């Protein structure tokens, strides 16, 4: 490093790190907010799906020697299929029950996945090292790791893609219709059970993409599941429930906030940031800080 880093460089580096980390967080959260918004279901297994995809990517590429990109895509497909089965086979059975019941089922499913992963992969931290893991740009004293930059690009692309897909494709319109009024949707011929499962599978696939990216840029272990679920929750609330572009903004905001906190606050307070943001958001503006909740005019019978 050339010379002592100035306070300005430190601040810039923290901002950049926060934005890059925020991209990953947004990617983690966008599937969560989609499921919450459309199905009115808090998926407490979301973090477990993220970590499961990370493990699958790791096992397929580091152990089985598959190309990392191919390994990531396979992991996404597996996690999406699992999500479809989970919604179709279990969660659809309690879809009309008070929200507590689906919440408990996803909680149980997440716990099951996490403990199964602890049993299968043990609970030590893992990192996927590839030829391009450590390459980085340097712009005026600020480091830009290439892979993290890609994860931000992927996050922006996928969240935009989901928003466009929901608006313009036939399946996307079916999903939105179900989110607004599932009984009316059924009356016009939308297969509601299938669309519920499809929405959950889409959320799981996004969790899978985030997990594959986590495997590439960071460390992970079964313990990370709860952190990812909590952060998704915070981002969904901040960005407006069901609002996918809001999730992007919320993710970036949380990433920057946590990076700045890491730079300027004592260590034990950093983990409290997400909670503090959550409580403030829930109590002051339950409809979202950055964005507005979609499906606020939902009809539930």
């Amino acid at each position, binding site marked *: 490093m050339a010379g002592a880093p100035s306070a300005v460089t430190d601040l810039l580096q923290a901002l950049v790190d926060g934005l890059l980390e925020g991209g990953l967080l947004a990617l983690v959260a966008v599937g969560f907010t989609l499921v919450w918004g459309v199905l009115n279901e*808090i998926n407490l297994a979301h973090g477990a799906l993220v970590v499961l995809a990370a493990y699958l990517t790791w096992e397929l590429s580091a152990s089985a020697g598959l190309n990392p990109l191919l390994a990531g895509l396979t992991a996404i497909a597996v996690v999406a299929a699992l999500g479809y089965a989970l919604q179709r086979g279990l969660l659809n*059975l309690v879809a009309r029950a008070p929200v*507590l019941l689906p919440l408990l*089922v996803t909680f149980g499913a997440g716990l099951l996945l996490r*403990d199964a992963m602890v049993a299968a992969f043990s609970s030590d931290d893992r990192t996927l090292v590839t030829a391009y893991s450590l390459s980085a740009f340097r712009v005026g004293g600020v480091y830009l790791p290439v892979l993290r930059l890609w994860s931000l690009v992927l996050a922006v692309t996928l969240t935009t893609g989901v928003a466009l897909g929901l608006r313009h494709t036939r399946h996307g319109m079916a999903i939105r219709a179900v989110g607004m009024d599932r009984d009316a949707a059924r009356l016009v011929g939308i297969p509601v059970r299938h669309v519920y499962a499809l929405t959950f599978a889409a959320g799981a696939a996004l969790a899978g993409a985030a997990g594959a990216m986590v495997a590439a840029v960071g460390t992970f272990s079964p313990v990370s599941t709860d952190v990812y679920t909590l952060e998704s929750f915070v981002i969904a609330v901040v960005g407006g429930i069901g609002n996918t572009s809001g999730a992007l903004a919320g993710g970036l905001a949380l990433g920057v906030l946590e990076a700045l906190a890491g730079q300027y606050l004592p260590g034990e307070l950093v983990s409290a940031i997400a*909670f503090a943001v959550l409580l403030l958001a829930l109590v002051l503006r339950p409809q979202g800080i950055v964005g507005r909740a979609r499906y606020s005019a939902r009809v539930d019978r």
Partner: protein
Amino acid sequence: MEKTGRRWLAGSAATIALAAGGAALPSQPLGTATSVLLFVTLAQSWNIIGGFAGYPSFGQVAFFGVGGYCAAVLTAQVGFSFWAALPASAAFAAAFAAVVGPPLLRLRGNAFSIATLGMAAGTRELVAILGVTGGGAGLTVPTFGPGPHTAYPGALAFYWAYLALAAVSLAVVAWLSASRFGLALRAIRADETAAESAGVATTRTKVAALALSALLAGTAGALFAFQQVVVFPDSMFDITTTTLMVVIVVVGGRGTVAGPVVGAVVFETLVTELHLFASRLDPLILPALIVVGVVLLPDGVAHLLPVPPGAGRGGTPRARPRAVLLDAVRRYRL
């Protein structure tokens, strides 16, 4: 009130029989029975706020932990005897609930659940940082030595103490179920806006329900702290405790008097006994039971009883249990 009188009599007789029976139990079944009784109390505590009022708290362990830590601090740092610390801890847990209750109870449904989860995690962090609680290193309740202490009373005494507490919880919920207060809570669960316009002071009623549930959970926490002797943030604020409370009430029957008792007996026995042989798959048992239990019994076993709770006094026509089981699944299925 002939019938009510007989019920109270039967309850008292059963309690005395259980107290006598405990003395005859060998140590392992006694341990299982003790933890069943602890969870009867905890489940009834959750039942008041989550079952009757319909506010599914996921942070109930906070009140258990606050009660336990209050007892530990009072005995270890202030020099109280345990039996003086017990009511003080219960009152402190209730007061804590009355303080955190109003902002939390503004939220509904999922948001309430997650906010209470956050409240419990925040309380745990706070306890782990504070000096008076011993931080992450934990705190020891003095049970011997030269200083002021309460001698450790032994397993059978704890069984009796938990039995007494479980009996009190059951009595409290039985009273609540028939009282005007319980009626107000049910009205809030059914339709809060309608309840408000019918003259129910919703905020005050909800906070009172949370404080009452915290009173029970805090007392149980204080007893648990004494039983464990050494308390840690991880043991007093274990999320699994909350999960068990919720699942026991859901599978037993939300908002019923008998349901949580049945749920606690079945669930705690299953969990404790299954631990004995399936060691490697151990951690998978509880989540699997949660998923299966909730999907198959969304309204709880109490609704399979010959006269379902909540049925009119005149009695709705009896349905066969099998049909009722499938009905609950059909009703909530997409």
